[in-house]
């Protein structure tokens, strides 16, 4: 269980997160949605223990702040891509916490290979990570998070650079992790996709939580439309699936 109470984060005079309180049960998938600048990424990095904060973030009974022992995997939206490292080496970094830096244990090696296979990255393993496409890099980042065998996985826009086929394949892999008892938190600009996989959605705007509930109740709420300034509409298809699309503005509205 992750318990967040009155979490506030400021950068200078700017309050980025404002008194956020949440409870996230173990083994669930929570999607954080909201317009740009809502504080979604800051919430994720705060859970990582990176940002100085006021309030409390507790994993069980332990305060999160700078607890390096906890095994949390992080998939950034804009990673720092290192020079001189192959895809396989980059993915293997995910084993550092379990196997030690620069060490390759048999079990870790097998796990890396299995994950490269599951993420459809076999064939790319010896390529320099600086030379692969944005979509391939995103799958590599998720592979690194998976081999970490974390308790919690934080993902910042994990599918933004993926084509439709790879979006589903990747999210299915993450769903398997959830079934193994891993807690998943993701920010997603594609609300439809977020609602399809996450059982719970947190809607944020301007550093505050506007709504927190099960996926269906949030996507059909008025708060969702108002968070996006009524620029979206929600449609229910014949098969019962819900899709959220941006409204096309008329020229005179721009």
């Amino acid at each position, binding site marked *: 269980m992750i318990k967040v109470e009155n979490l506030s984060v400021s950068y200078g005079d700017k309050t980025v997160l404002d008194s956020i309180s949440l409870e996230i049960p173990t083994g669930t998938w929570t999607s954080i949605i909201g317009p740009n600048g809502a504080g979604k990424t800051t919430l994720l*990095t705060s859970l*990582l*223990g*990176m940002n100085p904060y006021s309030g409390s973030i507790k994993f069980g009974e332990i305060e999160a702040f*700078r607890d*390096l*022992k906890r*095994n*949390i*995997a*992080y998939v*950034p939206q*804009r*990673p*720092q891509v*290192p*020079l*001189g*490292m192959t895809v*396989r*080496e980059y993915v*293997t*970094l*995910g084993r*550092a*916490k379990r196997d030690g*830096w*620069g060490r*390759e244990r*048999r079990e870790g*090696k*097998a796990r*890396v*290979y*299995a994950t490269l296979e599951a993420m459809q990255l*076999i064939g790319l*393993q*010896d390529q*320099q990570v600086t030379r692969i496409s944005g979509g391939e890099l995103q799958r590599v980042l998720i592979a690194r998070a998976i081999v*970490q065998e974390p308790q919690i996985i*934080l993902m910042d826009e994990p599918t933004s650079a993926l084509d439709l086929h790879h979006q589903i394949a990747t999210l299915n892999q993450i769903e398997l992790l959830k079934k193994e008892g891993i807690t998943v938190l993701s920010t997603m600009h594609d609300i439809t996709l977020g609602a399809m996989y996450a059982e719970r959605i947190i809607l944020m705007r301007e550093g505050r939580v506007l709504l927190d509930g099960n996926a269906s109740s949030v996507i059909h709420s008025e708060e969702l439309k108002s968070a996006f300034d009524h620029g979206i509409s929600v449609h229910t298809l014949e098969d019962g699936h819900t899709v959220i699309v941006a409204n096309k503005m008329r020229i005179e509205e721009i």
Partner: protein
Amino acid sequence: MSEIQLKPIWRWQWTLMAGIFLLIVCAVAITIGPVQINAIEIIHTLLGRETSLSDQERSLLIEIRFPRVALAALVGAALATSGAVYQTVFRNPLADPYLLGAAAGAGLGATIAITVARADFYPSLPIFAFIGGILAVIATFLVAGRLYSDPGSLLLSGIAIGSFATAVQTFLQQRNSDVLRPVYSWILGELTVADWSSVRWAALYIFIALGILLSVSKILDALMLSDEEAFSLGVSPNRIRIIAVCAATLATATAVSVSGLIGFVGIVVPHIIKRLTKKATNRALLAIALFGAAFLVLADLGARTLISPAEIPIGVITAFIGAPFFLFILRTRSKNQ
């Protein structure tokens, strides 16, 4: 199946080759000079056997040539390794002890030691140089705006701090004209003053620094990622940065204090090894140290033989090789971007 398809990450072939290359270069450098000494005689001398060498030749070998080659190797290893570490820590392939102000700060510290404190060369000079170097690095961080800044602004502030330290150093030299000549020749970079005392002191500090850097080399992988990614992998990036920068500055300062300002070794060597091994610099740190040692022994061989019996300052030789190499990297980098 997985073990067949996945190649090992850490390979030692290049380290072994760099070690063999260093041994060959050292053997050649000891043999060649104004007085040619047979390699067999050198081996006999090393093994403490009877040789046909005259006392003068024996003294030349043991008191001049051996310490000079040893000091060149130590300085080369220190400069190349610290350059590679700075490049990893600051995520910038052009970072080296000179661009961060570390070498200029160390130079100023050593100049203060010679001109103001009139300090003996060993062991106090490396300490003064280290204090100067580390203060320059701290100043570079502070001028950059905050303790840990982005690599670009860090390098710019390093250049500014380096220029300031050089200006103060020039001022001190002019105010102390009695020591102007030795300080000036030391600044150009030279190994002519090498003796066993300088080798011992340099070895002590450089081995401590290199020991620290090699022990953290694998964890330096984390510094090539964003701070958030490093943190999620269980590393406090700032702690590793402080350790790595302090150890690299100690290596730089010791090198500067025994040999003056020898530029470009920290850029040329890590890039050659990176191109050969196709590995990130921190993953080939020992190979870089060994190759750096061989590189400077070769440069020193050139310095003392090209216009023999006169000598070219070794800093001039490394600049002749390094400056075009630096421009080549700069050009390749901007093309890639």
